[in-house]
């Protein structure tokens, strides 16, 4: 290669990689700009605090905001303990390369690859028909109580969907806790569970919270898993029980985009809804990121 061609190849590569990076940023920019431009005007207090009206051509989206937040919260409460405990089992208790650990890992990887609509069907079949009906029978409910779509089942379905994210990031976090700390703790006469509770988990906390962030931002935007398990087409009332149906920003967006009698009239509301969904996801992320930085600073600092 002559110096000139070498320079040309270098230049071409630089431009190519730069272009790729630019395309990503541009796409994000275009999406955000489009959503903000068309949706920002519609995001008023009334819009945020009122239920939909006029066959979804007016009013607000408060029940959907509330439903999404409640759903995500329940999901987090369900997925974190299970995910963290699984990762702790894999990394701290199971002998390395044991058959059971390998089996769980394969299951986790496969779970992560399942299309989200399949989780919806799984939720319907397992939680509602199997667990729900079983509970109704066991608890002696005359009419369906648990064997119907509701926020509990939807959040559990989402929890199953986000489980791999939590397990993988928790395991990563556990791996990052120096072996030295475990050894030091055990050498001081701590039991394995004391070592886990006092040294390993506190050390892994920032990473575990990262897992929570990822799970929340994934879960808050998923629609397919909740289609058959609890999301309501239109329901001005807020969910009050674990078996209540609920409105959801993502599903509401889908409904407005496809089921509206007058697409033109619904479009501004649609944009505003999408903007709120994006903001909610960002806000949830932000909260978790702040918690994470705090604990990380605290871990590095005095305690």
């Amino acid at each position, binding site marked *: 290669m002559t110096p000139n061609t070498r320079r040309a190849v270098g230049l071409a590569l630089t431009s190519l990689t730069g272009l790729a990076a630019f395309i990503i940023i541009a796409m994000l920019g275009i999406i955000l700009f489009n959503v903000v431009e068309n949706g920002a005007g519609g995001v008023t207090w009334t819009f945020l605090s009122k239920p939909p009206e006029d066959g979804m051509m007016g009013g607000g989206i408060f029940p959907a905001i509330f439903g999404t937040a409640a759903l995500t919260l329940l999901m987090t409460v369900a997925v974190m303990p299970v995910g963290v405990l699984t990762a702790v089992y894999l990394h701290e208790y199971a*002998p*390395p390369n044991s058959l059971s650990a390998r089996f769980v890992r394969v299951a986790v990887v496969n779970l992560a690859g399942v299309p989200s609509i399949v989780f919806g069907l799984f939720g319907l079949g397992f939680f509602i028909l199997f667990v729900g009906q079983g509970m109704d029978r066991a608890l002696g409910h005359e009419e369906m109580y648990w064997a119907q779509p509701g926020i509990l089942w939807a959040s559990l379905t989402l929890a199953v969907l986000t489980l791999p994210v939590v397990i993988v990031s928790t395991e990563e976090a556990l791996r990052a806790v*120096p072996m*030295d*700390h475990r*050894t*030091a*703790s*055990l*050498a*001081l*006469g*701590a*039991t394995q569970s*004391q070592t886990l509770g*006092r*040294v390993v988990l506190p*050390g892994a906390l920032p990473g575990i919270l990262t897992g929570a962030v990822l799970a929340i931002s994934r879960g808050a935007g998923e629609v397919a898993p909740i289609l058959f398990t609890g999301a309501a087409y239109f329901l001005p009332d807020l969910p009050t029980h674990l078996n209540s149906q609920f409105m959801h920003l993502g599903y509401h967006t889908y409904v407005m985009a496809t089921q509206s009698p007058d697409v033109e009239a619904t479009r501004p509301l649609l944009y505003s809804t999408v903007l709120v969904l994006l903001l909610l996801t960002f806000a949830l992320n932000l909260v978790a990121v702040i918690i994470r930085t705090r604990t990380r600073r605290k*871990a*590095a*600092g*005095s*305690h």
Partner: protein
Amino acid sequence: MSLNPNAPRPKMEARELTLRYGTKAAIQKVSLAILDRRVTALIGPSGCGKSTFLRALNRMNDLIPGANHTGTILLDDMDIHDRSVDVVDLRRRVGMVFQKSNPFPKSIFENVAYGLRVGGMKDKSALEQRVEKSLRGSALWDEVKDRLHESALGLSGGQQQRLCIARAMAVEPQVLLMDEPASALDPIATAKIEELIHELKATYTIAIVTHNMQQAARVSDRTAFFYMGELVECGATEQIFTNPREKRTEDYVTGKFG
């Protein structure tokens, strides 16, 4: 057996101890007594099994997958591998300080209090007393008394190592195992640790691994020379350094190899 009633009795004793990682023996048929309230130095070239032997004494080798042993280790005539022995209990009686200082990312106070807390001590003033006593014992108190609640990671390397010694002493073990405790430290910090070992041997039985011959000569009463997984010779430090029985010992302590 000596008839002198003042002669120190063995605090710990290995009998025909063989330790393997998988099938590969790291130490072979080692019989060695660690005398009560004496400092025993373990010396020998890299890879000869000093750390392996030390870790066997408080069963830290149990944590290494594939490690297995034959032979016995006694602590005050009690077989430490006996089914009735609680390994957590054993480690409270036989403490350990590692080559690389490894303080927890917690405050200085919490580092020293750790062993006490996991042992169930809750009373705040009792904890404070013990922490102060241990920090004084490790000659660190004056340097840290105004910053007990700051992170231990802010200490210098030498201070961190003395903190780890304080942390190990806080649970008041009877035996203290030290694996090259000063190898990462500068001469001043090393001198402090050596001084400390001198003071500690009034109350503790100490086994220390070191690569530094002068250090072994300075701090220890007895010296054990390991070579390729075998215990070549063990005796009074002075005898090992001036009048060793074995040619290999002489070559090693005079620096001809290793």
